[in-house]
């Protein structure tokens, strides 16, 4: 990780780099964060500097907090990247009908706030013949597929060169060995630089403490993925690493009723994802930015 930046120093830098009202606005979540954090949490070391025992303590503490705050009995693990695995994802736009089942599955799998109906996936309704995702609409509400439209689900593209990681002042977000860009929700200071830096609008900010009924909480959780996030931090798609690092398919793929999604190991020449890359004309979003996504799109020809 190189020289370690403390969160306290980051707050100072943040103050120096933003003017007047913008600063007040930007630090509001930070202030809330500082108030809401208990001493143990504030003194917690960066995830990547924790010892095994230290991490175990943190996981048990977070489980206890979920039990206290949500009345839910959950288990939080920390599955590590698998050796010789680089995840890749592809999506067949000829087959997707825009039903939002993927977004819905993500909502439940990843313990999203019920009030905002949040999801790591936004399905964009696009006009046939256009390709600019900025022209897509996520708020359509009519039978699909609508005539003249196609549908483009967008989630974190797990870029090879993630601009969001570069702008984080406290290194609370980074790229793991299997290509998944993760966030340490206990280290994030909520400055939202990463959210602004992401060309794919893939990051979400927790304006409120997530509201989830106890019996709807998915108890199968991981530290870097779907554990209930605190207020005031940024989150994003993590390719369901609590599932995929155990060999399982992501929740959005299993939920897709049209079979538009293909997931697998880019390093395995026999994998389905490699077959798609070799046999379909795949493209990536905003290629000109040089982000080099791990998420590919294609049309059947």
């Amino acid at each position, binding site marked *: 990780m190189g020289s370690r930046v403390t969160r306290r120093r980051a707050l100072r830098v943040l103050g120096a780099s933003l003017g007047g009202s913008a600063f007040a606005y930007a630090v509001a979540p930070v202030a809330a964060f500082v108030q809401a954090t208990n001493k143990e949490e504030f003194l917690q070391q960066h995830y990547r500097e924790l010892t095994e025992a230290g991490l175990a303590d943190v996981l048990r503490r977070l489980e206890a907090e979920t039990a206290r705050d949500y009345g839910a009995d959950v288990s939080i693990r920390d599955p590590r990247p698998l050796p010789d695995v680089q995840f890749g994802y592809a999506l067949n736009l000829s087959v997707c009908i825009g039903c939002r089942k993927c977004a819905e599955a993500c909502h439940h799998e990843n313990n999203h706030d019920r009030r905002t*109906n949040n999801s790591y996936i936004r399905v964009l309704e696009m006009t046939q013949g256009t390709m600019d995702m900025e022209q897509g609409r996520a708020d359509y509400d009519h039978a699909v597929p609508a005539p003249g439209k196609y549908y483009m689900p967008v989630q974190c593209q797990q870029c*090879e060169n993630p601009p969001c990681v570069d702008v984080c002042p406290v290194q609370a977000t980074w790229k793991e060995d299997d290509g998944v860009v993760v966030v340490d929700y206990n280290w994030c200071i909520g400055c939202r630089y990463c959210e602004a830096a992401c060309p794919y609008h893939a990051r979400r900010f927790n304006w409120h403490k997530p509201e989830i009924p106890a019996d709807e909480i998915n108890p199968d959780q991981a530290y870097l993925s779907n554990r209930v996030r605190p207020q005031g931090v940024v989150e994003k798609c993590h390719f369901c690493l609590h599932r995929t690092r*155990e060999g*399982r398919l992501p929740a959005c793929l299993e939920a897709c009723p049209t079979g538009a999604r293909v997931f697998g190991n880019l390093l395995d020449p026999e994998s389905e994802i490699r077959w798609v*890359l070799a046999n379909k004309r795949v493209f990536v979003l905003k290629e000109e930015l040089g982000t080099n996504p791990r998420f590919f799109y294609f049309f059947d020809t």
Partner: protein
Amino acid sequence: MHRRAVHRRSATYPPVQLTLVVLAASASACQAASAEYFADTDQPRADDASGAALHDTTIELPASLRGVPTGERAPTGAPVVVACGTCHNGEPGALPAQASEVAGPHTGLVVQHGGNTCGSCHDPNRRDRLRLADGQQLELTEAMQLCSQCHGTQRRDYDHGAHGGMAGHWDLARGPRTRNHCIHCHDPHVPAYPRVLPAAPPRDRFFGAGAGHE
């Protein structure tokens, strides 16, 4: 798009384009290796290069391939069907020219599938069997072979996991996988995928009234 392009390239991460060249080069080998991945019946995939046994890929069989669903369910949850053979045992007579002529429990049948006639798929001598263009008879449970005869591209994509979806494990070394049958998604008589109402839209304002942020 009002964002500045990011033209940085980190030395530690090789650009994906490079990877793609390598991928393209291995395409043919890949095709040959995966030609036998799936069969119509439940068959485990061949062992991988490392020699580790792989878990099974199971293609689920729709109830309609076992008989006419009664709408009832067994205590196990499985749909109760009346086997085709209960009423059909090789009775003679040409297949009808039109779906509207069909009587009995099948009254109301609609067929909209290209220009196909009943005989494109059904065996004229055995009501409870299917038939390929070369005359080969198929059990109903072998219907995927029938579809593949005319839709080779989709079948090829399906065999490579790029059509039809799946559930379970991406890594068969770690666990099994189940797959849909063509007929789960496409009614053989009216195969167009139906339109549906989408799940609720997100309740943030993003990309809503004119593409502003939050």
